[in-house]
């Protein structure tokens, strides 16, 4: 029977585990392998496992290296770690690109791999001509240029950002067989730095009868959504920086609304105005789309918070386990309600659970990276993870979620993800 082990097993045995990722088709990292620590071999793009080099090539020590670069790029050997794009063939700027979660480690998403969801392309916004306007039910309509915004006290927070439609293939009748990033990769985690919006609300003097603000982007879809003012006061950021540098164009340059823990569609990119009102605008993206139809025929609207969710990124679909032995099960957990409190893992489809180790620091509304040592006996297993957050919310099973919400909900899918490991070491997505 396969079992979860105390994490110290790795230290005691002095093992070096290797990881290969499906998208990268990369080499196993480890040079010295014991029978207890078999490599997790990728099928690679051509479906051929790559063998480890017998010996390190030391030739680079006898050649002058490359010159400095003004802006660093990933290694030329990691070119296959990319966002895969799914877009409308008539409107190329309408669609998504997925973060390749299966190829990444830690909890920060590289900025260039942050997922995208655009409704009509990435606009080119000229910073010198950019203004951000507050108007509607305010004492003083105000506009701000970027130099003005940069004068305010800034705040940095590590936050996950997830599309409300992430993982929606989970509603399908049959389990989709794709790498974890192409299934669940409309979620990323960054450090966002910006102006707490509450400062500007005080300055404009928001009318006490106003309850909503309509946020609008400068994209060609002029994407607009309604946001409760209570959230804007509580913890909204006008983000100017992502992971230390000014926003990338595709993440909202020069200004993005960041609403910790809330669905991505609310976190308007290229934000240029907020209109304060006493009613929601009922835009397309909060009525016809991004609402969840229930089995009763009624639909839930303004369900803002992304629920507790976790998934195993390794082993996952597309990877193949080598010989039996000890593996590190690795994954991500997060919750829009607060901080990750506990992650458990199962190798028997949820019959028994073990507590996973969580890498710190654990922060509210942020990714947490979890790990568990697992001894695989070579027999079929079903790997699962489940998260509990510090507000008491628990990730549901798929059966529970479907029983509650039917299969037409489409948005906010956060059920437990199951990977079946077959006796030949291949990993499939299953509903368990």
């Amino acid at each position, binding site marked *: 029977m396969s079992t979860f082990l105390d994490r110290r097993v790795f230290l005691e045995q002095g093992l070096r585990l290797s990881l290969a990722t499906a998208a990268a088709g990369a080499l196993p990292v480890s040079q010295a392998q014991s029978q207890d620590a078999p490599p997790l071999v990728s099928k690679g793009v051509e479906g051929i496992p790559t063998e480890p080099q017998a010996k390190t090539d030391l030739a680079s020590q006898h050649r002058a290296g490359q010159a400095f670069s003004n802006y660093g790029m990933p290694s030329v050997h990691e070119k296959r770690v990319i966002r895969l794009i799914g877009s409308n063939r008539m409107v190329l700027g309408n669609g998504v690109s997925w973060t390749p979660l299966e190829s990444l480690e830690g909890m920060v998403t590289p900025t260039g791999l942050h997922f995208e969801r655009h409704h009509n392309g990435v606009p080119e916004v000229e910073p010198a001509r950019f203004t951000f306007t507050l108007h509607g039910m305010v004492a003083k*309509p*105000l506009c701000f240029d970027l130099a003005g915004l940069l004068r305010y006290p800034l705040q940095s927070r590590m936050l996950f950002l997830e599309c409300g439609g992430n993982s929606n293939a989970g509603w399908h009748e049959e389990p989709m067989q794709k790498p974890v990033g192409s299934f669940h990769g409309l979620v990323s985690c960054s450090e966002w730095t910006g102006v707490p919006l509450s400062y500007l609300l005080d300055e404009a003097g928001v009318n006490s009868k106003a309850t909503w603000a309509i946020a609008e982007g400068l994209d060609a879809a002029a994407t607009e959504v309604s946001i409760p003012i209570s959230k804007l006061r509580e913890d909204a950021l006008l983000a100017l920086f992502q992971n230390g540098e000014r926003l990338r164009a595709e993440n909202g340059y020069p200004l993005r609304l960041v609403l910790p823990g809330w669905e991505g569609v609310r976190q308007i990119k290229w934000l240029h105005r907020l209109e304060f009102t006493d009613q929601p*605008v009922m835009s397309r993206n909060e009525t016809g789309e991004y609402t969840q139809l229930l089995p009763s*025929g009624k639909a839930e609207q303004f369900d803002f918070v992304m629920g507790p969710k976790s998934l195993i990124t390794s082993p996952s679909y597309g990877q193949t386990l080598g010989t039996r032995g000890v593996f590190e099960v690795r994954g991500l957990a997060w919750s829009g309600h607060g901080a990750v409190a506990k992650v458990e893992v199962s190798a028997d489809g949820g019959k028994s659970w073990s507590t996973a180790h969580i890498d710190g620091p654990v922060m509210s509304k942020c990714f947490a990276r979890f790990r568990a040592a697992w001894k695989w006996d070579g027999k079929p297993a079903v790997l699962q993870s489940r998260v509990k957050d510090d507000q008491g919310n628990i990730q549901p099973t798929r059966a529970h979620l479907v029983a509650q919400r039917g299969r*037409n909900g489409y948005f906010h899918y956060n059920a437990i993800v199951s990977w079946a490991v077959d006796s030949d070491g291949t990993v499939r997505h299953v509903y368990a």
Partner: protein
Amino acid sequence: MERYVMFMLKRAQSVLFTQAFFASLLFSAASLTAIPAQADSAASRPTPMGKPVDAGSMVQFVPNIFPTGQGLPSGMGLAKNGAVLYQAQCASCHGRKGEGGTAQELIGGEGPLNAPDADKTLRTYWPYATTLFDTILRSMPPATPGHLSHDEVYSLCAYLLSENGLWAIDQPMGAQELAAIVMPNRNGFIRKFP
């Protein structure tokens, strides 16, 4: 909880400022650039950087159009004009009869919404007709958004709503008429907020 943390942080900051103040008294000659103590919270607010907005710059904004009709511009449209516009500007993505294509279905859809494969269409699902005007005016067609006149958008709304059996085909449509339409699924939504 977070508010409490913020409060504690602010307190901690004011303690630091107070300490800085006393330190500056002791070392006044060397502390010309020290951060001064903040006697009251008003003085510690950020320097306001907002500039007054002139009405002219707000006129340029695409209006946000609310279910009450607030934001709807003046204008008038007819379904027969909308039919011509639809074929020229919309059919390539939404289908010649609005049956959908690379973009969503606009004409048709059958209830009920509690069926296993319910149709979430304009007719069966969308709660407000004003959303249709708002969406077309601000974002359609995707290749050239923002170029349709208000009369043209009213005409497209009249055409799509009449093809869906929600508007009389020969009746002119303006702001009042559009805002007065009660869509079939008006009461189909449960608000999780407020």
